């Protein structure tokens, strides 16, 4: 089951503070990067739920995000449905799609699961790429952002939109913790550790997997709807398997199965990408080498490594003091 410890709280507080600081001080370009991080963070949370807590390593989450983005674009721009409803529709539609994929793939394990999800992701990609309704390889433009004029918020302003995404990320994080702590989440971790035993206990294993995959898909769909509103233009490239691969890379670099780690990973990945692509056009090489090094070191990503090294010590110190963790102490270690 997912638990918070002092280190996780501390990192969350630091991340939140950094995001808020960035949101209120940065210029346009900084805000765009912040929004990119926040949307990627939502996607990798969705992936961490299935991969880190259910052992379902999915290579179709990029495609699910794309499904959400296209559903939002079609519902709002083509069918003329009000943006809030379109967003809800996109999230629901992606959830249903993901549930079906999860149900079909639930029998496969290991590499076959990875391949099966890859197949479904690619199926969506090539369908969208060919279909004229979706604008084919030209993509779709003219996507409107949510209108929060009622509350006096104009989302077309990048600062408001970044804060809106931050709020969405906060809600998703809360939902993820709730899912993992619920009966469903506990069943899921049981299935990950010993599927046979859970089946013997009378659990319908495929339902658990499909349900969690569906919930994770809803989160990915939300990320997609936000991404469509952020760039206001979508293209089939969003569904490509390399997007799913990159999301998996972020989860691994951050720390699989920690929820907090992937958030750190998302921030590190986007910042690294922008910094490196400013310095050299060969940033893929650097990311590739870092990825190989992290996986070969057998550490569970950046955050996992920190947690394994200092998590216990911090926990003990907190227990000694019996009250009040010292965030400054923890963050200087982090």
């Amino acid at each position, binding site marked *: 089951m997912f638990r918070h410890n002092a280190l996780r709280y501390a990192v969350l507080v630091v991340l939140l503070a950094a995001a808020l600081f960035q949101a209120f001080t940065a210029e346009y370009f900084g805000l765009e990067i912040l929004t990119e991080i926040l949307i990627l963070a939502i996607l990798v949370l969705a992936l961490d739920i299935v991969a880190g807590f259910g052992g379902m390593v999915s290579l179709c989450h990029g495609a699910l995000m794309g499904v959400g983005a296209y559903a939002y674009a079609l519902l709002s721009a083509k069918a003329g449905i009000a943006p809030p409803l379109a967003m809800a529709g996109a999230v629901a539609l992606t959830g249903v799609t993901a549930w079906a994929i999860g149900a079909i793939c639930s029998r496969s394990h290991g*590499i076959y699961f990875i391949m099966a999800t*890859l197949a479904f992701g690619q199926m969506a990609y090539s369908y969208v790429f060919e279909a004229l309704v979706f604008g084919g390889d030209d993509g779709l433009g003219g996507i409107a952002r949510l209108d929060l004029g009622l509350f006096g918020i104009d989302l077309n302003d990048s600062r408001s939109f970044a804060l809106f995404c931050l709020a969405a990320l906060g809600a998703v994080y809360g939902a993820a913790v709730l899912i993992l702590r619920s009966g469903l989440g506990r069943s899921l971790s049981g299935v990950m550790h010993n599927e046979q035993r859970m089946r013997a206990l009378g659990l319908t294993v495929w339902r658990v997997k499909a349900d969690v995959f569906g919930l994770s898909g809803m989160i990915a769909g939300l990320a997609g709807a936000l991404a469509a509103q952020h760039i206001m233009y979508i293209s089939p490239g969003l569904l490509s398997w390399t997007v799913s691969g990159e999301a998996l890379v972020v989860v*691994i670099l951050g720390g699989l199965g920690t929820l907090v780690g992937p958030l750190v990973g998302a921030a590190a990945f986007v910042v690294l990408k922008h910094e490196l692509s400013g310095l050299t056009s060969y940033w893929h*090489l650097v*990311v*590739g080498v870092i990825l190989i090094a992290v996986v070969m070191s057998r550490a569970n990503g950046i955050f996992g490594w920190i947690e394994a090294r200092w998590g216990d010590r911090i926990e003990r110190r907190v227990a000694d003091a019996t009250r009040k963790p010292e965030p400054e102490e923890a963050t200087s270690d982090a």
Partner: protein
Amino acid sequence: MAHDPGFWMLQALNALQLSMLLFLLSIGLTVIFGLMHFVNLAHGSLYALGAYFGASAAAVGGFWLGFFVAPVAVAGVGVLLYSGLIRRMRKSGPMAQVLVTFGLIFALLDLTRLFWGDLALAIQVPQILAGRTALLGIEYPTYRLFIIGLGLSIFAALAFVLSRTQIGAMIRAGVDNDAMAACLGINVERLFFIVFCVGCALAGLAGVVAAPLLSVTPDMGLQILIPTLIVIVIGGLGSLKGAVAGSLIFGFVQTFGAVLAPQLASVLIYALLAAVLVIKPVGLFPAKG
């Protein structure tokens, strides 16, 4: 058009040519998986490397130099990869392997850009293979016939080695039960190494052979990777029969799908893969039951 037997003949040959190219790639990947349980997503990058090595050598000494240099050079890269990375990743789970080789894709992609630049290269087809050949009432490019012939002869050679020679028997034993094979005195680790290098060489060969048909670009490895994975998953991991069946299925579904139902063609093959995975999760001809 649709009632002309020549047209269908042409499409069948196209399908066969695509199948043979995919066979060259997938056989290495599938035997590496069957023997080592190792998922090498960077196999497509080795194919791209083969095309680049081939193009460079061909610029110096013509097509045939490239044709022979590419497999050897890519096998050399394979030796480096094996001793540097793969050997240490052997005991890791599939996810770690997928990730390391995903990182390798990134790294090799940029390394090829670094060495050869972003511009597409081309290889000239040699005089003897240029032009067209009359075959069963149609004219077909000689070079494509050459690819079909090459694929068929490699298949025959591999089938012979795997079923008739001692090393073939050792490989089959290793795929079937590597612990037992090791107990019987087979140096399974060395076998892995040999198979890995041969797989790399075949990927390099596929690269240089495909180069005159397509242009040589850094992302050609990424484009071929997904079809190759589909082939080995449909066919079943680890078996020669599976690789052949998967390649033929992919080649014919893709080619005839594009002719008969252009809108559905690209989705068709993924739907087929999903169907295979649902009905037979381990593929059509898995190496072990």
